[in-house]
């Protein structure tokens, strides 16, 4: 019998001093890295609509502007931040390019997100897509999401704030964000 993957357990409330001390993990795009720079602001709220402050950690994993998951380029593609007292955190990164999907298709630009928190026994997976992106219409993963829930996966551009995108993670309840079983 092959080994069974170890069970997940919650990250708990006290991970910060170990996991999120390096604020550089909020800055993915350094000077000179080609691509469209964006500020990606997350806000995390619970089933009461209350912010999930401090005891939540967001990790992102994304391709570079050419759609490559880069182990070789300047762009590491990984970010990790804790939420602040408003349940928010902001990554400075690049808008990703289109990544190869299945069967030779291309996926729409997206950023993979993992959510860890006190109260989450298993971390959650979701994806940030970009509102108004024409390629969203042909994305095979978005197509698996019931149409009425797709909007939960779309980051919205900040009004009057070029390059800023906002993504609201509603853990539970009305407008609950779509999470993926990967």
């Amino acid at each position: 019998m092959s080994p069974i993957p170890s069970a997940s357990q919650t990250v708990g409330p006290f991970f910060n001093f170990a996991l999120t001390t390096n604020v550089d993990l909020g800055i993915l795009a350094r000077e000179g890295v080609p691509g469209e720079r964006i500020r990606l602001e997350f806000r995390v709220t619970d089933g009461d609509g209350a912010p999930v402050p401090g005891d939540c950690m967001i990790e992102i994993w994304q391709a570079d502007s050419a759609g490559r998951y880069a182990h070789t380029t300047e762009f590491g593609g990984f970010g990790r931040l804790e939420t602040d007292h408003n349940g928010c955190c902001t990554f400075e990164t690049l808008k990703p390019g289109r990544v190869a999907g299945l069967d030779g298709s291309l996926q729409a630009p997206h950023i993979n997100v993992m959510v860890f928190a006190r109260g989450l026994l298993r971390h959650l997976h979701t994806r940030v897509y970009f509102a108004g992106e024409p390629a969203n219409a042909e994305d095979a993963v978005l197509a698996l999401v019931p149409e009425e829930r797709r909007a939960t996966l779309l980051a919205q551009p900040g009004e009057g704030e070029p390059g800023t995108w906002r993504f609201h993670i509603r853990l539970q309840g009305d407008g609950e964000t779509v999470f993926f079983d990967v």
Partner: protein
Amino acid sequence: MTEYPRPPAGSQPDNDHEPYRSTHRRAPRQPAIRIPHTLSELTGPIYGHNPIGETDNDLTRHFPEPPQGERIVVAGRVVDEDGRGVPNTMVEIWQANAAGRYRHSGDNHPAPLDPNFFGAGRVVTDAEGHYRFLTIKPGAYPWRNHHNAWRPAHIHFSLFGSGLVSRLVTQMYFPNDPLIPLDPIVNSIPDAGARERLVSSFDISLTEPEWALGYRFEIVLRGRRATPFEEPTR
């Protein structure tokens, strides 16, 4: 493209687990939508933003003076679902001190902080997937989940493995701890065998004579290396 298998039923906790109070307003109500594994899920970060320091895996040497408590070795192997070692992957740990208190501003447990214990460490697995920490045995501590609730002594673990799919955050427990069967977080895992696999075992071969007891904790990450991801091209 090869899909990694999904974990067997019951081997992972459900987020919707009523006895763990913090889940009540945080666990999603909608079922997660299953998606195929693409490059996005099968690749993952090589996490090495700052280099590992020489004493990062020795939590007893983070200050000039030694910490209070029982010194222990915690070591084992990280393997994939084929039983092959996962080399060169980051293992991060964090824990309470011997009195059951974290060095965290949010921890109000009236137990002493230890000025000589920080409680966080990390290491990268070797070519066969082995890792090793020297630390002190953490204390149990009360939490407010329910009346007279106590967490069993535990060490938090965070691992990456080969891709997003293999990301794991878990907790390691100690053998023969009477608090384990009472703990809602442990009991969120339906399968008894899966719960037991989070309990380390005392191991005399890891024990350092005249210095520290050894505990073995083996970790299995999702994924099989028999995938087309030896050389990601794009």
